């Protein structure tokens, strides 16, 4: 199978391939040519892109607009933080635990929120994330940790010393590989039998029910899968920053994630990565010029939404290609 067909469903070489290959080249070259600051920004893009992809599986493929996805950035981060506090540093424990607990959290939240649709779904996911934000603010661990201070991580979760994560470059490559795995897995997921049902639910849930599908269960399953991916991203984000705070769960972060997906291009898997890169880079560049960086970013967002409902990825997609 050609990689281009795998990612784009097309065999012709076009602008999208160029953008993706250039992006991949930059991500791989950053540790060689960039300084610590640049590498940190690049790693941040990679980690947040994972959670953007997980959100797009819900939003672009499932038609479920979650305004509370930051809760999983928080759940993954806090699992790593709390485990580290109690002495469990091993990455082979911390990462699976972050995924499993995020899946469970998604199962509980999803079971309740998926009974609503449309704007009610948006509001209730927001409400759950805010609830967890206040929980994170309130929970104190020991004397100095937790609460609004957050939790520190003294060193990145080691994987039995297989990789030296003290070296930011090695951690960066690690996140790039994980992003690749998530991207490929998501590609398989959305094109699978399960993905077909999920996408049909987005278009016409009533019809899918009348064909014999228990749509609630499929939506709960995709909510849990998305939560698991996002939880892993949260754990990596915590490892990158060596710190997690309640701010990670704030609704503004959930909003930022929605912007990344929509600007980059929902209902594609590359779009959220592009959106994350654009968002993080603009945040870094413009916030150096003025603290009111949203005043500049807002109009840019409007332009993208006005000119292409498919986001940036939609703009670089060839017109003839309908698939």
């Amino acid at each position, binding site marked *: 199978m050609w990689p281009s067909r795998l990612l784009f469903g097309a065999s012709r070489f076009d602008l999208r391939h160029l953008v993706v290959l250039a992006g991949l080249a930059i991500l791989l070259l950053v540790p060689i040519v960039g300084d610590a600051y640049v590498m940190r920004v690049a790693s941040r893009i990679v980690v947040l892109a994972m959670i953007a992809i997980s959100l797009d599986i819900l939003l672009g493929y499932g038609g479920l607009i979650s305004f509370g996805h930051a809760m999983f950035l928080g759940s993954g981060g806090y699992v790593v933080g709390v485990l580290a506090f109690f002495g469990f540093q091993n990455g082979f424990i911390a990462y699976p635990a972050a995924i499993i607990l995020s899946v469970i959290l998604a199962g509980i939240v999803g079971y309740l929120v998926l009974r609503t649709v449309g704007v009610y779904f948006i509001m209730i996911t927001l409400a759950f994330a805010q609830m967890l934000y206040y929980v994170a603010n309130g929970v104190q661990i020991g004397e100095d940790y937790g609460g609004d201070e957050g939790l520190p991580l003294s060193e990145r979760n080691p994987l039995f010393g297989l990789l030296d994560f003290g070296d930011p470059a090695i951690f960066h490559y690690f996140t790039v590989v994980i992003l690749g795995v998530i991207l490929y897995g998501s590609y398989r997921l959305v094109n*699978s*039998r*399960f993905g*077909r049902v999920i996408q*049909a639910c987005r278009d016409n849930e*009533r019809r899918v029910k009348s064909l014999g599908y*228990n749509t609630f269960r499929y939506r709960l399953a995709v909510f849990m899968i998305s939560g698991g991916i996002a939880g892993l991203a949260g754990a990596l984000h915590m490892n990158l920053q060596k710190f997690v705070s309640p701010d990670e769960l704030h609704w503004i972060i959930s909003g930022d994630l929605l912007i990344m997906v929509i600007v980059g291009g929902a209902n594609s898997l590359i779009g959220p990565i592009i959106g994350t890169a654009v968002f993080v880079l603009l945040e870094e560049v413009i916030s150096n010029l003025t603290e009111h960086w949203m005043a500049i970013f807002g109009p840019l967002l409007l332009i993208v939404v006005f000119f292409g409902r498919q986001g940036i990825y939609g703009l670089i997609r060839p017109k003839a290609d309908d698939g």
Partner: protein
Amino acid sequence: MSGPVLKVEGLTKRFGALIANEDIDLEVIPGELHAVIGPNGAGKTTFVSQLAGELPPNQGRIFFDGQDITSLPVHTRALRGLARSYQITSVIPSFTALDNVALAAQAADGHSYRFWRPARSVSGLNDKAANALDEIGLGARKDVLASNMSHGEHRQLEIAMALATDPKLILLDEPAAGMGPAATEGMIEYLRSLKGRFSILLIEHDMDVVFSLADRISVLVSGRRIATDAPDNIRQNAEVRRAYLGDKADSLVRHRTDG
């Protein structure tokens, strides 16, 4: 199977003070094409929605294939073999015609919690879907997005989806709604080809469709079933003519003598 495929007993649905369906009894015999007719507001759509499970009845029971399904949810009824098409087109617009029907075939096949293998590479589902489309005359249009299809094609696609779920009984809610005369003729021919292969409950407005196809006809008026009989007897039924057909009665008699 000897008993009726569908048996409805005393089905009653009220919306506040409005009684939409009142004490309706009805049976569909295996292999039969049973039509339900009635003027606008007779409660036909309310009736079919209760059969499909989208509306809970206030009273009464529904037996499908000998089992009480009155309190089962929509998807469970569908899995047991109760398929339906909608009066207002209900397809998956961003899917191709083939993927729409393959989705339906996949429901009957089960195994939808499969997360890895591309759905489009499952040849069993594709073949079944392609056959269903060929049969209804959409074979050449199988790779067209449903959103780019015409109204008439949507009506056909609806029925192909219902058939691909391997149903025991198909509820067809005005399959020819909004179709032109030529397309309606094609739909009638197609439905005729289904007769005997499936049990069909046809909810219909269009008299030509009903009288040329049905084995038996039930007449709903103001939420009540006032008659069930063979088409010829329905034409003659004084109560039906008075209550429902009104001034159309003459044209129906003429239609019969022409035919």
